[in-house]
């Protein structure tokens, strides 16, 4: 069961539209924001409110990059692996062959897709973010960072560890 306030919030969203399933993604975002990820229970409750079967909602949930069906860290880092970010990582003098993704994984001691032991960070690849004029770029909980250097990444990670940060999307 969803907490009553959450249930009411979702029901209010759905009351405003003719076709409830048009809000499938918004409902998933809302539940994900509450639970930290889209748990099995959240998926089933979401489907019920949307008038879909859990399978119908699962079909969509597993399709999208920004719906997390497994627990993720407090900060989800989506690293752009588009061709412009691939090309523009000048400044990586210490290690000219290391990508942002490699650097982050090394710093955070995780593999791509994993969450750090302290539960703070999850690193995921994402297709071109549309910030090619700020390449190389990454998105942390919906906030854009770029153009990145290793020093800046260190600074950003430090800041996220120590300061409160507004969550813009999803979570």
């Amino acid at each position, binding site marked *: 069961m969803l907490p009553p306030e959450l249930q009411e919030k979702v029901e209010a969203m759905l009351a405003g539209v003719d*076709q409830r399933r048009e809000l499938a993604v918004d409902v998933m975002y809302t539940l994900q924001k509450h639970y930290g990820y889209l748990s099995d229970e959240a998926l089933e409750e979401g489907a019920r409110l949307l008038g879909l079967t859990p399978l119908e909602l699962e079909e969509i949930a597993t399709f999208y990059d920004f719906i997390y069906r497994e627990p993720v860290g407090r900060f989800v880092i989506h690293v752009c692996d588009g061709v412009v970010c691939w090309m523009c990582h000048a400044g990586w003098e210490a290690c000219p062959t290391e990508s942002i993704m*490699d650097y982050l994984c090394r710093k955070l001691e995780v593999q791509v897709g994993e969450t750090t032991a302290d539960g703070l960070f999850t690193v995921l690849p994402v297709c071109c973010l*549309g910030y090619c004029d700020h390449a190389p770029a990454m998105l942390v909980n919906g906030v854009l960072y770029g153009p990145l250097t290793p020093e800046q990444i260190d600074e950003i990670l430090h800041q996220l560890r120590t300061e409160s940060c507004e969550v813009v999307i999803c979570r």
Partner: protein
Amino acid sequence: MAAFEPVLLKNLQPDRPATLEEYRAGGGYEGLAAAVTKYTPQQVTEMVKASGLRGRGGAAFPTGLKWAGIPDNAPHPRYVVPNTDEMEPGTFKDRVLVNADPHLVIEGTILAGYAVSAARGIIFVRPSYEMMAQVLERELDTARQAGFLGPNILGSGFSFDITVHRSAGRYICGEGTAQVNAIMGLRPHPMKGVRMTDRGLWGQPTVVNNVETLACVPHIVRMGPQCFRDLAACETGAGTKLYCVSGKVNRPGVYELPSGTRLREIIEVHAGGLPSGSEFKACLPGGASTKYLPKQFYDVEMDFEPLKAVGHRLGTGCIVVYDQNTCFVGATLNIIEFFARESCGFCTPCREGLPYIRDLLWRLERGEGREEFIPLLRQMAGHMPKSYCAFAPGAAEPVLGLLQYFEDEVREHISQKGCPFKSSKFKIGP
């Protein structure tokens, strides 16, 4: 040619979107006011047809013709879907456009709605553009309060409203039929043989237009189709174009220029040229779904027809510049990895063919390439048009470009048993 005045980015501010007042001061919503009081919907469609406006999202379909695809006796309600998914690698013009002047896009959408007698517009926004979604929602409210949106617009009896649809992020959602499925809460697979103007959103007539395309419409209605045509720099072009330039240039960014401006001018004058030590090797002229455009075409007019004449496509007009240190096997591998991952997996040529191409490129880059890979790559790329939608043929373009212009480089990978670009490694640029 007279001094060039921007049409799409004229209200661009360094740090914030233009307000409704600023937009109106430059003639904003005059086109809408004229349309709903003086012109019939058919007349608006005719004006857009006469303007020569073609889709800016990559497919270059004539916009007026698309709208005219909805006959007068088609059922209601009808929908307009401004496509702001923009996930083509190298493309960020719509982000800049909407954040610069949200009301331009809103007015363009309302005019499209009027032309096809639609009841509702649904702006489809990708998740990394969340700030844009919030700007749009705020400005839609402002437009509603000013009487430009909602019931009985400007007392004309025409009612139309717009909402923002947030996506959860997949490249294929930019394809029109997939986008409509996504809005309906279905898995966003493209549909084959379905005309959106017949049976689109909720089975009703629907037009899906790129937001840059829609942003051209207020100018066409306010100033007339000929005025719009005259903005172009080449014979066959119409209007201005947002060229976004990224990669090896000094000033990456979005530049609004007469459609058909020469590639050399865009790169050297507007984007500040290449950094010192870098030399132009080739570019992607319109995102990752277009063929590499090498140096011999440096003076080509960047518009649909001139590029078509030399065997290329304008695509989204978003130019990714590569210098002489870029390994094109590596660059193509990056692009194909993207496409192989983003394939929706629905049809076989795309789902099976792209990973096959990726593996061939991967082995070439790792020094495991063999001579027979070259005809094999050609053959596999040749299968891509057999797929359901334009995704896979688009993905094949950089591969075909690689083989057409840089086959020597591929052969060097084979003969040297590895990447000849010293500092290059799998996944990494120069």
